[in-house]
């Protein structure tokens, strides 16, 4: 698991855990539905995540919206999941980007407040998310991605002839980040 400080947002450290082959997605999702306050985390379906940069872009958008009181969802963590989406429909965005009962790979994000330390966050995720922790890198993400679905959902152009259709190009990633940034405009 990793703690990330984003440029320009020194007060909002991100704690990110990427989990492979998670067994208890149903349980995690139920905690969110029950609004269990111990589970104030952003749980995203890692197979829908385009890249590490896209995740940080979503976090930075959500934090920016929270600073100005423009959040459309309940809290900063749900807002991060919403910010991963390029559409303005909240429940559809959660269905697409958020954790589902069938989710295999989970990306968990916590924006740290003073009441918790990084160690506590890491311990909590290690205890409650039943999966293998892997490094939060583009390589690991690309092994989890459902590329055809990502292409469809972000309306990416079809892969060019000399490109590998099974993976996302740098341009694809840029389109995803751009579409996320333009969401709601």
């Amino acid at each position, binding site marked *: 698991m990793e703690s*990330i*400080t*984003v*440029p*320009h*947002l*020194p007060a909002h450290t991100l704690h990110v855990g990427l989990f492979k082959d998670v067994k208890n997605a149903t349980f995690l999702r139920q905690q969110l539905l029950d609004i269990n306050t111990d589970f104030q985390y952003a749980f995203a379906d890692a197979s829908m995540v385009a890249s590490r*940069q896209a995740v*940080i*872009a979503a976090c*930075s*958008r959500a*934090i*920016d919206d929270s*600073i*100005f009181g*423009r959040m459309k969802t309940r809290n900063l963590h749900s807002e991060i999941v919403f910010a991963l989406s390029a559409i303005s429909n909240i429940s559809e965005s959660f269905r697409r980007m958020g954790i589902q009962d069938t989710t295999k790979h989970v990306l968990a994000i916590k924006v740290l407040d003073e009441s918790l330390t990084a160690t506590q966050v890491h311990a909590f995720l290690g205890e409650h998310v039943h999966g293998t922790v892997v490094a939060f890198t583009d390589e690991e993400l690309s092994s989890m991605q459902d590329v055809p679905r990502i292409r469809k959902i972000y309306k*990416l*152009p079809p892969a*060019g002839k000399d490109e590998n259709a099974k993976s996302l190009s740098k*341009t694809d990633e*840029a*389109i995803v*980040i*751009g*579409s996320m*940034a*333009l969401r709601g*405009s």
Partner: protein
Amino acid sequence: MAADPLPTSHALPSPFSTSTTPLTLIAQGAEALLYHTTFLSPTTPCALKIRPAKPWRHPTLDKRLTRQRILAEARVLVKCLREGVAVPAVLGLDWETGWMAMQWIDGGSVKEAVRGRDVSVNGADGVLKGLMRRIGRAVGGLHAAGVVHGDLTTSNMMLRPIAGETADRLRGEIVLIDFGLATQTVQEEDRAVDLYVLERAFGSTHPREEGTFPEVLEGYREVFKGAKGTLRRLEEVRMRGRKKSMVG
């Protein structure tokens, strides 16, 4: 945190106002300020375009114009990415407070490259012509995507070094920048004016190289199917100038 009710013209919007990340002002236009900084990660350089509030405008109108212009530019950039035109990627934006973070493009402008080119070497003209043709292809690709730039000059074109290629000043991939005046259009007239503006700008910025401009039109023809109509219209625009309506 509440937004400052009386923003001064050069105050940075949040979160940049309280940022501990260095921001360097690199250019200032009539509408916007351009900073070099990092965004999303400490190793991702970015160009941050800030449109500060204009205190002389009515606040409601000011907000609306800022929003419209930021969004128009961001939408055009994302559209270009989708169409495969080389432009800076949009990393983030806030149309309420008026900023947009874009991918930093390495390399220098075409203007610097042409001005600083080595005219003494053998085949210097050929290299320049090659560059001009690549410019034409870049503009043709842009127009084929349904976008006109609105301010095509050699300082709004970057030469991004290509990995593994010899670092000649005039080599590299053409990347168009500064889409602040860009519009999405299907009008032949708009495309012809776009080319005309480039032609005039090129002639006055690089008078010695003016003779190579036909190469630009040649490159344009190579990649854009509607080039014939646009170039025919360009003849008309040359006769009468940029303004058609004679108003304003």
